[in-house]
């Protein structure tokens, strides 16, 4: 069953089309990896689904309803959540308060979730300002996703800023979230992470070039990268 479908999406900026008639279907319950080199439009795609980026053309459907013109907060309310590639810091907002935005959580729940994402529970009282390291900031955002049991979680490079040792924990968290019923769109350029996906799509120049099994798409991606490398050299 299709949970999310994008059809002929175009996003234009001054310098041209960033997404160029992109179409994509994501089935309910799957982990769907989006793989592509820097600048192909992965983050733009994530933002389009969340409503953070306006489309010049195309339709987005979620649970068979057209959400193309739905606001960001309404999309959040119907169960779409995003982990941004570079989430901003906030002055004067505690992690505990941030995690409670948009939901009711007890301090016990918060501490449990912090532990799960590998942060000490004292961090609930820490401010979400720029004194947090990049990896810690990312972990808070993963925690935020876990608080809300979304129907669809868009994870834009959840592994960036996370150290090698913790990658296996991250994979475990994503798999668990998926088991609990969350469909996952997993944006990455690390084959290692893509391994946990059920399906993968290769993205090139603002388009989905091919969708298939993750192994096949990963090797295709490697070939693409080699070709690209040859072109650059």
């Amino acid at each position, binding site marked *: 069953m299709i949970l999310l479908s994008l059809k002929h999406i175009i996003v234009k900026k001054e310098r041209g089309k960033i997404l160029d008639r992109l179409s994509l279907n994501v089935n309910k319950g799957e982990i769907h990896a989006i793989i592509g080199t820097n600048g192909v439009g992965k983050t733009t795609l994530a933002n389009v689904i969340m409503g953070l980026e306006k489309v010049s053309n195309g339709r987005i459907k979620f649970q068979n309803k057209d959400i193309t013109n739905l606001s960001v*907060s309404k999309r959040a309310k119907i169960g779409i959540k995003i982990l*941004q590639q570079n989430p*901003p810091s*906030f002055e*004067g907002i505690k992690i505990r308060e941030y995690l409670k935005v948009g939901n009711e959580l007890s301090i016990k729940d918060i501490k449990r979730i912090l532990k799960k994402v590998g942060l000490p529970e004292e961090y609930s009282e820490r401010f979400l300002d720029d004194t947090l390291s990049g990896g810690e900031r990312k972990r808070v955002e993963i925690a935020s996703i876990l608080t809300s049991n979304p129907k669809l979680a868009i994870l834009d490079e959840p592994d960036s800023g996370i150290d090698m040792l913790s990658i296996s924990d991250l994979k475990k968290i994503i798999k668990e979230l998926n088991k609990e019923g969350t469909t996952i769109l997993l944006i990455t350029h690390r084959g290692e992470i893509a391994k946990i996906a059920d399906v993968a799509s290769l993205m090139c120049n603002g388009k989905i070039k091919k969708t298939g099994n993750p192994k096949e798409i990963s090797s295709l991606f490697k070939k693409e990268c080699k070709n690209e490398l040859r072109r650059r050299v």
Partner: protein
Amino acid sequence: MNYEDEFKQFVNAYEKSGYVSNNLFSPKYAKLIVNESKVLSKGEVEGVSIKTRFKNGTLYAKITIKKGVKVKYPIHMCFGVLKEKWNQKIHTTLILEEGAEAKMISHCFFPNSKNVFHIMKGNFILKNNSKLIYEEEHFHGKNGAIVKPHVKIKVGKNSFYVSTFKAKRGVIGKLDINYKLDVGEKGVAELYTKVFGRKKDKIKIYEEVNLKGNNSRGILQSRVAATENSQCNVKSVMRGLGNYSRGHVDCTEIIEENGVVSAIPIVEVKNKTAHITHEASLGRVNKKQVDTLMTKGLTEEEAVEIIIRGLLR
């Protein structure tokens, strides 16, 4: 009205203004409580002397913290005006003798103000090796008041001064802050100012830190929100004069609706080993922050409110 009734009324208004009154009754806390131009209560503790006198329409208060005394509980100062109109003039001298340490909490509240003036002239002297944490909070009711805290502060050798000024609730009216600090050798001065402008508030903030001593340090941080038709003007001066003095000026001003803000940072370095940095950001709330909170299901208005509240925390 007899004294007791007046005190009761005062405490009542104090609580209605959002403050907790327990400490005003406890003998553990040194305090000075003033309504209009009358001292309602004065409490000294060991090592803290508070002298007051009234002359030519001005209340003079002299607070001394004796040499080496580390005051355990915060000293409370309350300057209130319950009347709609009043001209409150206060002259405060605060002296921390060598090695003294204290925290002071000062509440200025004019909950019924229609035309209250509060003019406060201060002279704070922190002698060598002393430490003062000073917090001042204002509440000017629904209509605002005309308020001028003008304070000169001397931070001695190895001394430490941190102050926070907050006017976040209610309508401010006209606020004219003027703080001038001189910081001695290895001294530290940090000023944090948080102001929320509403209606037709006119806010002027002038803060000057002269890092005179060698290895002195200073921070001037202001966080201002100008909403509705309020105006806010922040001028921050930081001068690096002493050898290896270090200073930082950091100003964030947010506007909503028809608010107007300006920031004039003046950073001067007159010593080649001194180093001063400044950053300023003026304008609407950061879009990426708003977006991020909206992805959690908040509306734009709710997101903006949370961000401003955080900034002014």
